[in-house]
C-alpha cells in the first residue's frame, strides 16, 4: 500500500493537470520513491485515486524504462552503452564493473544492494564513458573511479 505522505504528494500533482490521469507519471514516480517499484496494490491504489483502471496503470508501467513492476535492489547502476559512450570505452567499463560486482549486466548483487545494467543515451556524450546511479550522473569515468563510486554505495 502507499503511505499518506505519498498520497498527499499525488494529490498535489493532480491539482496541476486539467484531467486527473495527467498526474499518472508523477504519481508513479512518487510511488517508486517510497516502494522502489509499482506493486499490484500500489497500482490499484493509484488507479482509484486517478479514477482509471489498474490495467491502465500497469500498461504505462510496462512501457517506460524507469518504472518497475517488481521489487528492486536499493541502487540502480546504468552504464550508457550508446554510440558516443561506446566509442570511448563504455563496454570495457561495463565489463569491468560486472567483474567487480560479480554479476552480469541485467542482474543484481546477491545482497540486493546493486542492480547493474546498461542504458541508452543519457545526454552526457561529451563526458563519456559515464553512468547513472539512481538520480545522479557520474561522468568522465575510468574504471577505477567507477569502482570507487560503487564501493561507496550503501
Amino acid at each position, binding site marked *: 500500500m502507499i503511505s499518506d505522505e505519498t498520497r498527499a504528494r499525488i494529490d498535489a500533482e493532480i491539482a496541476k493537470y486539467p484531467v486527473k490521469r495527467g498526474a*499518472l507519471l508523477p504519481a508513479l514516480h512518487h510511488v517508486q520513491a517510497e516502494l522502489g517499484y509499482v506493486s499490484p496494490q500500489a497500482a490499484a491504489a493509484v488507479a482509484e485515486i486517478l479514477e*482509471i483502471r489498474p490495467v491502465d496503470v500497469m500498461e504505462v508501467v510496462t512501457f517506460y524504462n*524507469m518504472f518497475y513492476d517488481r521489487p528492486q535492489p536499493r541502487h540502480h547502476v546504468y552504464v550508457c552503452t550508446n554510440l558516443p559512450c561506446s566509442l*570511448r570505452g563504455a563496454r570495457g567499463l561495463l565489463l569491468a564493473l560486472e567483474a567487480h560486482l560479480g554479476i552480469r549486466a541485467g542482474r543484481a548483487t546477491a545482497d540486493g544492494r546493486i542492480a547493474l545494467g546498461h542504458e541508452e543515451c543519457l*545526454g552526457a*556524450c*561529451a563526458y563519456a564513458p559515464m553512468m547513472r546511479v539512481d538520480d545522479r550522473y557520474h561522468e568522465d569515468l575510468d574504471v577505477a573511479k567507477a569502482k570507487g563510486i560503487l564501493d561507496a554505495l550503501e
Partner: protein
Amino acid sequence: MLTTPYVTSYLSEHFAHDDFGTLKGYERRGGYQAAREALTRMSPEEVVQRVKDSGLQGRGGAGFGTGLKWSFMPRETEKPKYLVCNADESEPGSFKDRILMERGAHQLLEGILIAAWATGAEKTFLYVRGEYAWPASQLERAIAEAYAKGYLGPKVMGTRFRHDVVLMRGAGAYICGEETGLLESLEGKKGQPRKKPPFPAQVGAFGMPSTVNNVETFCHVPHILSKGVEWFRGFGTEKSPGTTLFGVSGHAVRPGLYELPLGTPLDEIVFEHARGVPHGRKVKGVIPGGMSMPILPAGELDVRMANEFLRERKTMLGTGGIMVMDETTCMVRVACIITYFFRDESCGQCTQCREGTGWLNKIMSRIERGAGLPADLDVLLDVAGKMEGQTICAFADAAAWPVQGLLRHFRADFEAHLREQKCPFPESFEL
C-alpha cells in the same frame, strides 16, 4: 566535467557564471526585459510576426518554422491553450538542452513567457526526460523563483496576463520526444504518437489547442525580441539563421558543446574547435545531427552545418549532435548499436516500425556475430526502404536512415564482415 560550452555566443555566453541560473543573476545581465517589453508593449500578433520574420527554425530536430507554428494556434477560442516545452532530449549525441536547463533555466522561462503571450497560452507543461533529475531540479528552483517574483502566476509582471508552468518528469522513453508522443505521455498514457490530422494546434494536450517547442527554440526567443530580427539574422545563413549548440562527442580531442552559427562547416567544428581526432588517427566518418541522421564519410566533412546544405548530402542537421569516428571504428558495430537503440525505443504501434526495427537489429547482430550472408545487405536496404515515409511518426524514418547511410558510405565494412565471418577491425571499440 566541463559543462559550459567551449565556444559561446548569445545563448551560452554567461553560462560560466553560476549565478546566471538564478533570477537575480539573470536579471542583472538583462534578463526578463524582453518578456516585459512583449507583455506590456507588444501585441501577441506582433510577437508572432517578429519571430516569423526572424526565420527561427525549431531546434528539436525537425526544423519547422517557429513563428509559423505559433500562428497555427487559434486566436479566438473558448478552450484553454497550452504550451508544451519538449525537454525530453534523448537523441544519442545530443546534450545541448541539458546545459540550457542546467545553466540557463531563466532564459528558457523567459522564452516560454514570450511564447505564451504570443500564442495566448495559459499554462506551459515543461516535460523533462525522467533521467534528467539534476536539470529538472534546476528548473524547479527557477520556476519557484519566478513565481515568487510574480513572473509567473495570475498577474505576470503586474499585467493581466496569467501563466503557469508545470514541470513534469518523463520516465524513460525516447519516443516521448516526438511531439504527439509527448502529449500522450503528458496525459498519463503510453507515449505512442498520434495520427495526424488532427494536429496539436487543434487537438493538443488534454484535447486543447497546444504548441510544442524544443528547449533551445524557446531560448532564442528573448534574444530575437531584445536585439531584433536583423541582429538575429546576422548569425547563420539566409535559410537557417541564428546559432545552435553543437555537441561534439566520440573520437574527438575536445568533446563538448560549441555555440556556433548555423552554416559553420563541419570540419571547422571537428578539427578546429574540437581539435580533431586523438592519437594522431584519421577520421573515418561523422554523424552530424544525432544518431537518427545518416553518417558522412571523411571526404564529405566540408559540408556546412545547416539543413539546406546537409540535405544535399542526404543527411540533416537534426539536433546537431556531432559524433566523430576514427579509422579504427567498425561500422558494422556502429550499425549494431544504432539498430539496437531503435528496436528498443520503438513504441510498437506501426507495423513497419515495430517489426522493421526488430528485423534490422536481428540481422545486424547476426552479421556482427559472423553469421552474415551476402543477401543480408540487400534485405537491410529493402527493409529500411519499406519503413520510410509510411508510419504515424518519423521514428521509422529515423531508424531507417542511419542504416541506409552506413551502407551507402561504408558498404565495404559490411562486406568484409560477411567475407571474413568476423569483425575485420581488431582495434575497433568493443560492442
